[in-house]
């Protein structure tokens, strides 16, 4: 049978970000997929190296609007890893609260969009309506619906007021019945079972080979969660369950995300009820030379930041690896052999976030690679050295 190539994107109504898919199909069946990104590249790593340690937090916050806690969290942990220091306990709790509230809002967002892709717009409207309550909690705690600006190396920027806690707890309690209803609406719906079960399966072996992260790997039975494996923040303090299922299909990925929301509510309530008294900031003054890594469990998987300091007030090198970077190649395993109509939901199932994933490479017009990431870092360093010499700095 002849092969047809279907281009999707970069501007299409499927996802809100621009990205370009090439689906190669034989009749109805997808035989190959290629993803081209780069429409969101803003050069965050380079930009971050031109800002001070404290200002970089705001840049990494704008890597992605949905993970606007995960990236600053991982970044501040990387800076704190450069030299021995202790973050105050209250700051740890506040960080955990913000991170978990973000997880709920991100999973609800995914659930809504997944419903939208399936043509099940009721779920879309319900989930996003519920999400507003969480955004209200965020607005009470941080003053903004997104881009919370709560993090700084050594602590948090803003304290949680005592009188806000009961209001937040009440709001969180109020979403539980609706969340429960939504869970039943999705998990007990025979139509969704028929539509999603056995679609886009990522096996245990494939999940390990592709190094899948977060809900994508946990749906395939790989019990991997940074919050359990190397606890940070306040996750060590409380009891909570890591949700792992084994089928690896789209349905299981939805199950994981829905059940995780209930765990997040549990963690959120624990932290708000037992918020310890004390300082919220360790007041870091100078960052000595050295290297640090920070990794945390974002809603989509492990976010990893590497920061190298040379003793000045700016990072010498800042490297970001977002979870979608690892989850994106799993398309090769999941989409092949499925029909075109299922491809949309399979592509959405990993909860892709392209603006986290963007990398830069320089190609000539014929597609020949001129410089890859490593070359560009080297060129940038050489130029900095040249400028320093010319200006007579050190």
């Amino acid at each position: 049978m002849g092969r047809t190539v279907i281009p999707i994107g970069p501007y299409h109504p499927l996802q809100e970000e621009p990205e370009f898919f090439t689906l190669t199909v034989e009749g109805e069946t997808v035989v190959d997929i290629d993803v081209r990104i780069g429409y969101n590249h803003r050069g965050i790593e380079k930009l971050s190296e031109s800002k001070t340690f404290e200002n970089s937090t705001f840049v990494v916050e704008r890597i992605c609007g949905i993970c606007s806690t995960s990236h600053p969290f991982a970044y501040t942990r990387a800076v704190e890893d450069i030299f021995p220091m202790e973050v105050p306990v209250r700051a740890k709790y506040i960080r955990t609260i913000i991170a978990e509230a973000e997880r709920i809002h991100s999973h609800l967002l995914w659930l809504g969009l997944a419903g939208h892709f399936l043509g099940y717009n009721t779920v879309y409207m319900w989930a996003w309506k519920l999400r507003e309550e969480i955004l209200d909690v965020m607005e009470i705690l941080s003053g903004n619906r997104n881009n919370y600006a709560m993090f700084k190396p050594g602590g948090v920027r803003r304290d949680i007021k005592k009188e806000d806690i009961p209001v937040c707890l009440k709001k969180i309690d109020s979403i539980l019945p609706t969340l429960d209803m939504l869970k039943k609406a999705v998990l007990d719906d025979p139509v969704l079972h028929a539509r999603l079960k056995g679609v886009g399966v990522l096996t245990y072996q494939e999940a390990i080979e592709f190094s899948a992260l977060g809900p994508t790997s946990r749906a395939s039975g790989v019990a991997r969660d940074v919050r359990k494996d190397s606890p940070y923040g306040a996750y060590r303090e409380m009891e909570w369950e890591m949700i792992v299922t084994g089928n690896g299909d789209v349905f299981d990925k939805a199950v994981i995300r829905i059940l995780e929301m209930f765990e997040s509510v549990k963690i959120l309530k624990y932290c708000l009820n037992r918020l310890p008294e004390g300082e919220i900031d360790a007041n870091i003054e100078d960052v000595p030379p050295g290297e640090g890594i920070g990794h945390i469990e974002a809603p989509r998987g492990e976010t990893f930041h590497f920061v190298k300091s040379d003793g000045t007030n700016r990072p010498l090198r800042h490297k970001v690896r977002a979870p979608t970077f690892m989850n994106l190649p799993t398309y090769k395993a999941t989409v092949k052999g499925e029909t075109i109509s299922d491809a949309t939901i399979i592509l959405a199932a990993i909860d892709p976030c392209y603006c986290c994933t963007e990398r830069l490479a320089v190609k000539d017009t014929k597609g020949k690679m001129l410089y890859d990431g490593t070359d560009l870092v080297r060129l940038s360093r050489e130029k900095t050295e040249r400028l320093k010499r010319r200006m007579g700095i050190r």
Partner: protein
Amino acid sequence: MSLKLKALLKSPWVFHLSTGSCNNCDIEILDCLTPRFDIERFGMLLAGSIKHADVLLVTGSCNRMSVERMKELWEQVPKPCLVVAVGTCTASRGIFKDSYNCPVPLDKIIPVDVYIPGCPPKPEAIIAGVVKLIEKVGSGND
């Protein structure tokens, strides 16, 4: 005001164009469609194709790769079309001003009618911005 514009303002269909944003403005635009804000009650509808669009909601910092696509889309869109710059990135590039991949702000590429500042602007602000756009065009002070 031309008949075309008058007909367009009755129920403006918006097309959402992301040119290298962090997703936040895009999500707030989608948020406008959902029950709490529900801009469909003003007759606004998110169009799937640029050929159906009356208003362009542009987000993001216009990076080198998307600028070329954006110019192509701007040629395809049926005129008259109104352009709304959503978010600080589109208006002035904001925090990405010094980035190597964000050469110029949006109004150097295509004509912009309304700017909605904010990082990200709240859904209320986006709705207010579009309503102001309708008022501005409706009163003829173009």
